[in-house]
């Protein structure tokens, strides 16, 4: 069934279709609409979940951790300062291998205080052990929530997943969305069956101390699960295509007119939509432009990126974040992916769209112009 809905509603519908048993929530702009919709569904009897009003984001994620440990599917959502407050528990959830799903409506971090969009909040949590998937449209947000549970709960993975959508720029945008049938989602996503759970009938200890003789092995195992998730993400995407006739590249990256391109923009999130329009415009002028959308930032799909860039002369990386004192995070990681390659494209970095600054077609045209000219420093598209 197709409906014109807000992307936040699309996320909430995606969550409802996955039937989480517990949803701890704490409001924060621009995420609030997601949990508001879920609260309405619970109130109206459309979703049989336990809603927990937490007193902070630290408590919301802690409650989600506890609920997930009892073997129940959970969900929560946050943004910006809320995600920063969750920081401590994010690492615990990943280390305890609890496959929960959380939506992030990406927002800038203080100071100065700013409620608008950039991706600094989730990029700053890239080392937490959470899979991070960045989406471009309301449809992709809904579909990715369903896929996220499938990926997280896979026994080879058992890691939490963040589904990141640009705050306001996507979270508050109304788009036509094809809503999947519940019975089809139930077929795609089987009932959650935890590997371990807190159960008085069969007691276990969760979250114990890891002494120096085991801690590294546990960290390595979590890292390997993250690497194993690459194939699981691809499979979830192709299975989703079979069930719902929609897919997003290979699940990790999505390319647009890259095969015969000379130059491409690499980016995450909604800026990819604007870039598609710019690519079409440049193509009309005879310039061979393309787009590489990085959907999965963690795990970082190095092989997939390298293989799609074989014929490229240059890549302009647009970062909606800045690692202060260095450069944009995606820029750093993309360059490192090519370090051992004999043939590599020129790669330049551009910082854009921080704190709700619009990224317009003219910004993206500037990035294309500068990569063609090959100016080597990190540029700010102000």
């Amino acid at each position, binding site marked *: 069934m197709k409906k014109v809905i807000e992307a936040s509603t699309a996320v909430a519908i995606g969550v409802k279709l996955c039937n989480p048993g517990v949803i701890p929530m704490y409001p924060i702009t621009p995420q609030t609409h997601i949990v508001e919709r879920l609260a309405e569904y619970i109130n109206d009897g459309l979703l049989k979940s336990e809603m927990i009003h937490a007193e902070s984001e630290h408590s919301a994620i802690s409650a989600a951790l506890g609920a997930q440990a009892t073997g129940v599917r959970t969900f929560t959502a946050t943004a910006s300062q809320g995600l920063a407050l969750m920081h401590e528990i994010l690492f615990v959830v990943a*280390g305890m*291998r609890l496959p929960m799903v959380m939506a992030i409506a990406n927002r800038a971090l203080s100071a100065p205080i700013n409620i608008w969009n950039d991706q600094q909040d989730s990029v700053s949590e890239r080392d937490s052990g959470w899979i991070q998937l960045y989406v471009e449209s309301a449809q992709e947000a809904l579909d990715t929530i369903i896929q996220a549970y499938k990926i997280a709960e896979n026994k080879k993975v058992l890691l939490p997943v963040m589904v990141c959508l640009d705050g306001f720029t996507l979270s508050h945008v109304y788009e036509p969305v094809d809503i999947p049938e519940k019975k089809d989602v139930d077929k795609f996503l089987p009932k959650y069956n935890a590997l371990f759970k807190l159960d008085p009938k069969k*007691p276990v*200890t*969760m979250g114990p101390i890891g002494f120096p003789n085991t801690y590294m*092995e*546990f960290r390595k195992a979590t890292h390997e699960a993250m690497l194993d998730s690459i194939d699981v993400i691809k499979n979830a995407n192709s299975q989703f295509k079979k069930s719902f006739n929609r897919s997003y590249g290979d699940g990790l990256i999505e390319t647009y007119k890259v095969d015969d391109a000379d130059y491409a923009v690499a980016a995450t999130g909604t800026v990819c939509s604007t870039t598609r329009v710019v690519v079409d415009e440049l193509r009309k002028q005879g310039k061979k432009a393309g787009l590489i959308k990085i959907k999965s930032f963690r795990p970082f799909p190095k092989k997939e990126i390298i293989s799609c860039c074989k014929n490229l002369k240059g890549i302009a990386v647009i970062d909606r974040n800045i690692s202060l004192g260095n450069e944009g995070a995606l820029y750093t990681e993309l360059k490192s992916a090519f370090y051992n390659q004999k043939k590599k494209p020129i790669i330049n970095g551009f910082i854009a769209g921080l704190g709700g600054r619009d990224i317009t077609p003219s910004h993206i045209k500037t990035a294309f112009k500068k990569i063609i000219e090959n100016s080597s420093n990190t540029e700010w598209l102000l």
Partner: protein
Amino acid sequence: MKKQEKPKISVGAVIEEPGSTIKNKTGGWRSFRPIRDKKKCTKCGLCWQFCPDNAINENFDVNYDYCKGCGICATICPFKAIKMVKEEK
């Protein structure tokens, strides 16, 4: 450093055997051991109540397998019946 045997790595460090902490004997951490003077002791039970490691039993004897030698029992004893004596080999 003595090479320790590697314990089995479970997913998320879950321990499937409940109560297994008892295997981890912490008495070796001790640098002072509590010695109770049975003549001074009135069996008031404050040491048993305050011991953070549950290493004093209902007869007020110390279990040296688990006593870490924190000295709380000696400090709390109103009759100065417990002395902390340096561990020496």
